């Protein structure tokens, strides 16, 4: 096995560890998908639940890592590739399965404590929220789009000078294989760039337009946290878009100038490292909805957010017919999810999956 293989798998397995600490990244008004008053978040009962979850999932991930690497010498490279994907899916699935009993335990605690009966349930919205500069302008995405156009234009300008064989496939072991030069082959990267650019634009739209979600217990602070949260993640998104676009254009250059081949490692790894470390660091710094950012302000006693747990199936899937929102903050995680009672959520999901399937097929037959 080649070093590329070890780097890729090690990165993925290490990133998986961060999922174990999800209960620490959520809003402090939630615990395992159940709404709680913010003031009880640090009670020892909930602290120990979070610790238990983290311990179990870390152990499972460790076990998967040991099993995976010890199987390397027994199986072929292609089997190993499949095994790697299976291991990753298995881990995500086990995280969810571990989550479930914690979720049900929280539901029982909620009944026992009857928080929503002793607190006044409120929804707070700020009439000026959407006038705040919570995000970066869509204009920033014009430049990456322009880079894609330039990449395509340049490729076909020098088409005749491009070697007859282009290094299209990089196997899992890092071995480069060549394919005959064709218009289709040379368009794979630009199309991937466009697909990613489109995805990033959708995510930016989600950040800009998702429900404002200000905590009733402390609206002043919560609002500032949410605004900062959106700003930081918008910035991360724009930087990521630029890096990925440049990276793909750089790869395209290795098709045109074979002498550059081998240097792409110096670009790909730093970019991947930035994307992953950036996301983890940002999650730790901000927390969901900015909940981990320290901002001083007074807290209202005996008020909590409206109890909307009934709309959160298994504490993670939001299904609310009465809510016209399409995008809402995730309950258990950092980022956004859909209101699955809204038809547009399903149209969006299916078209993304469809595009992801259609684009590769297109190139097989082109």
């Amino acid at each position, binding site marked *: 096995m080649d070093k590329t293989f070890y780097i890729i798998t090690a990165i993925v397995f290490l990133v998986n560890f961060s999922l174990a600490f999800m209960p620490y990244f959520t809003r402090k008004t939630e615990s395992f998908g159940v709404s709680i008053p913010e003031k009880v978040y640090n009670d020892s009962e909930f602290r120990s639940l979070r610790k238990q979850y983290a311990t179990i999932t870390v152990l499972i991930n460790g076990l998967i890592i040991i099993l995976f690497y010890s199987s390397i010498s027994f199986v072929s490279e292609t089997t190993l590739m499949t095994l790697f994907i299976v291991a990753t899916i298995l881990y995500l699935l086990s995280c969810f399965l571990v989550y479930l009993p914690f979720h049900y335990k929280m539901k029982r605690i909620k009944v026992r404590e009857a928080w929503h009966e002793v607190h006044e349930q*409120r929804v707070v919205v700020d009439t000026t929220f959407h006038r705040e500069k919570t995000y970066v302008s869509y204009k920033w995405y014009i430049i990456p789009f322009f880079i894609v156009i330039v990449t395509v234009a340049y490729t076909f300008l020098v088409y005749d000078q491009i070697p007859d064989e282009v290094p299209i496939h990089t196997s899992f072991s890092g071995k480069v294989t060549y394919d005959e030069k064709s218009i289709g082959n040379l368009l794979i990267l630009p199309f991937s760039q466009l697909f990613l650019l489109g995805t990033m634009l959708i995510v930016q739209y989600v950040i800009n337009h998702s429900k404002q979600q200000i905590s009733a217990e402390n609206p002043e602070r919560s609002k500032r946290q949410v605004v900062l949260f959106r700003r930081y993640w918008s910035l991360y998104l724009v930087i990521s878009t630029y890096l990925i676009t440049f990276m793909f254009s750089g790869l395209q250059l290795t098709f045109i100038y074979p002498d550059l081949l081998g240097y792409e490692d110096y670009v790909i790894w730093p970019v991947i490292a930035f994307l992953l470390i950036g996301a983890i660091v940002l999650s730790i710094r901000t927390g969901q909805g900015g909940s981990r950012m320290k901002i001083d302000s007074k807290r209202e006693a005996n008020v909590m957010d409206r*109890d909307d747990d009934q709309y959160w199936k298994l504490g993670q899937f939001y299904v609310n017919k009465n809510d016209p929102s399409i995008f809402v903050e995730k309950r258990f995680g950092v980022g956004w999810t859909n209101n699955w009672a809204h038809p547009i959520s399903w149209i969006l999901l299916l078209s993304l999956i469809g595009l992801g399937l259609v684009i590769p097929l297109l190139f097989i037959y082109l």
Partner: protein
Amino acid sequence: MFIQLKFDSEVPIYEQIKQQIKIGMAKGTLQPGERLPSVRQLAKDIGINLHTVNKAYQQLRDENFLLIHRQRGVVIHPDGAPKTDEIHKETLKAELAPIIADAFCREMSENDFLSVCYEIFKEMKGGSSDG
């Protein structure tokens, strides 16, 4: 301004939206001509049906507290709230009667009742920023 809605209250949500906007205007946290979120935006942020928000906005418009433009959206009436007149005084009297009756039955004195009124008036003039 923060609009605070109590979901376990008996006062319907559209009524609460109306009340909160009026309080905002009284305290000055909502200025004449200031833009409010669109019906859709506010419904999304609260997580309720569009009709509920629409009802509140329509009624406030009918009472001349808001203007609803096709292009500029929903704004607080640039001239501020309509001034009090004989008709308003009649409505006010009718609305206050059951409230005063309730206080009267509880043997609340006229002075005590009035001092509560003064307090609320002071709050409005003070323009407390917590909305």
